[in-house]
């Protein structure tokens, strides 16, 4: 058996080892004309047609490989999705690796290949990168930091100031599959059919705009899940929101994982879902459009936007028994419970 190839400090030292990593791995898989000169900065083509949108994100998930994806895949989807829900068409991405000495090179390679694949799927180019290696014990195998550039076409605005009383809230699919897949991998639970929902949603978003759906606002419920996104929307807009528990369908396998670990699915991350608010007159068209797309097959209306709020807890959830309760932000992380 061949010994496992490991990342060494030399891979980040600027010498031959680093050059070989860049040429054999990054250039080979990310190939595009902006990256190939390997200059200090990628000089892009002139941009027209709208306002530039810029985002940045860090990815530190443990474990780096999980059912349905890995950190490389996630890093591109996460960046693309942040641009997409801002109404932008994602274009270029930068991608920096912080590797821990001793990290298997196979893991790095796997993440590079998945990132390249996700970039092709989303129609974006990885145009600049960086590699740093930290001594063993000072990192956790692989961290990825990205930035993404997109263009918001003329006339698009998905800011929360557009949220209006009477708008309906639509979720593109069951929430929390990503978190459930990560938790299952982390705790050695057999996930069965469970896979992360991690996917670039820009195609889904573009389909909505092509269908002339008047999207008022749009978010991707990542960290903190639906609970966090709904509360942010309510605070930014000054409007109260209400969702209906029985209208939020959840994947049974994910539900089992959360129940087993004592976690609330409403606060669990998705990486391939969108939550949008739109006038009720556009809801039917939006649902039809979403459901005709593979990433939106289970889209449904889950709630509505109410009037202005004075309450410090502006988001509520009504359950199937008719009781309405507050849907409050988590304090700290959602800690596992004893019983």
């Amino acid at each position, binding site marked *: 058996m061949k010994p496992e190839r490991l990342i060494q400090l030399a891979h980040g030292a600027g010498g031959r080892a680093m050059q070989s990593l860049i040429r054999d791995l990054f250039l080979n898989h990310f190939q595009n004309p902006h990256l190939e000169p390997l200059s200090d900065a990628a000089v892009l083509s002139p941009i027209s047609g709208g306002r530039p949108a810029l985002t940045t994100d860090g990815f530190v998930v443990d474990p780096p490989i999980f059912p349905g994806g890995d950190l490389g895949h996630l890093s591109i989807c996460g960046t693309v999705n942040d641009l997409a829900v801002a109404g932008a068409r994602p274009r270029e991405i930068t991608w920096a690796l912080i590797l821990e000495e001793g990290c298997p090179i196979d893991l790095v390679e796997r993440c590079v290949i998945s990132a390249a694949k996700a970039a092709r799927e989303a129609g974006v180019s990885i145009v600049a990168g960086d590699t740093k290696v930290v001594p063993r014990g000072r990192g956790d195998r692989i961290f990825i930091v990205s930035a993404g550039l997109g263009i918001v076409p003329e006339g698009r605005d998905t800011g929360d100031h557009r949220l209006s009383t009477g708008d309906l809230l639509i979720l593109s699919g069951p929430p929390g599959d990503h978190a459930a897949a990560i938790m299952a991998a982390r705790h050695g639970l057999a996930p069965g059919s469970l896979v992360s929902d991690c996917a670039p949603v820009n195609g889904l978003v573009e389909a909505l705009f092509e269908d002339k759906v008047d999207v008022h606002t749009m978010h991707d419920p990542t960290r903190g899940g639906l609970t966090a996104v709904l509360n942010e929307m309510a605070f930014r807009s000054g409007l109260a929101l209400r969702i209906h528990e029985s209208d939020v369908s959840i994947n049974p396998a994910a539900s089992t994982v959360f129940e087993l670990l004592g976690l609330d699915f409403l606060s669990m991350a998705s990486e391939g879902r969108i939550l949008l608010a739109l006038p009720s007159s556009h809801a039917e068209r939006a649902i039809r459009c979403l459901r005709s797309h593979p990433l939106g097959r289970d889209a449904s209306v889950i709630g509505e936007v109410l009037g202005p709020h004075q*309450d*410090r807890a502006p988001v509520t959830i009504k359950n199937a*028994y008719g009781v*309405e*309760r*507050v849907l409050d932000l988590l304090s*700290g992380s959602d800690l596992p*419970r*004893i*019983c």
Partner: protein
Amino acid sequence: MNTTDLYHDSRVVRSLVDQIHKASRGLPRSITIMEVCGTHTHAIARAGLRHLMPEEIRLISGPGCPVCVTPVSFLDRALVLGRRPSTRLATFGDLYRVPSSSLSLETAHAEGIQVDIVYSPRDCMKLARENPDELIIFLAVGFETTAPTIAALLVEADQSNLSNLMILPGNKIMPPPLRTLSEDPDLQVDGFLLPGHVSVVIGAAAYAFLPDEYEKFSAIVGFTPADILRGVLEIVKQVKDETPCVRNLYERVVSDGGNRNALALMDRVFHPCDAEWRGLGVIPGSGLTLREPFAHRNAERIDVDMPPAREPAGCRCGDILKGTLDPPGCPLFGKECHPDNPVGACMVSSEGSCSAWYRHEKRSL
């Protein structure tokens, strides 16, 4: 539809609520029902069951959150131990944010104390093996639900000759506080919703003293809304018929005699001791400490200087744990004390009465 779905089914829930309303009409007086399990507290608040009750029925929470009943002095000791060199604390997540007299484990961790959150006590075996130069101290809290797995951990550690693993014993058992609550003249509890998980281990027969000695009405129930409502309906019926008993409604997992293996394991490792409960004071025979053959794993025996324990000023966790005060009755509730800045333990764990109330009840502050 599987069994769990059935217990969540809104038609089943609505039908049970109807039956409770009908049955309550003939009640001679209002009744108070206490749940003594944190997961019940959480489930009742999350499903909003209090709002579905007729006015004759009051649901209150008792000392069922294991973290909440853990006295401040336990955490103080944990932190002092954690500050010793080459020491790593391991804890259930619930305990992580609970304030001690000074810091919480969370803030202490940021200051450099090594604290690992584990899901299962058994994870400590791995921690001990991976960190052979450190002493791993597991903060052993919980009721009869966690005690058998902690006992199993210590037996396994002995069998593996793992010398760098100890526990700080803080486990408690449920029957003694049920006696204390039944005897409390300030607290008029008619019936108890008995804890499902604890009952799996100790069995339904362990509560026989409730009807026999105190004429209390009770039902052992599971954790779905329908499970809990079945229990309420059962207690209403017992009150009307004046037939106090322990009715096992969690018969799909709870037997009369409990889990004999788990009980034997607990008995091999632990013996009962007097223990302090936040809010209830010292209750004879309500705690578990290590038997002599396992005494070398008792971190309480490590000689340390302990600062005097300080309960947070103004905090009414004690009264809330006894069920004599609802959370909004505490002057700190929702003001100085909220989930982002918990003053008392009841605001930390999602099983804590204050946290459950704060999170789920509709309110304007």
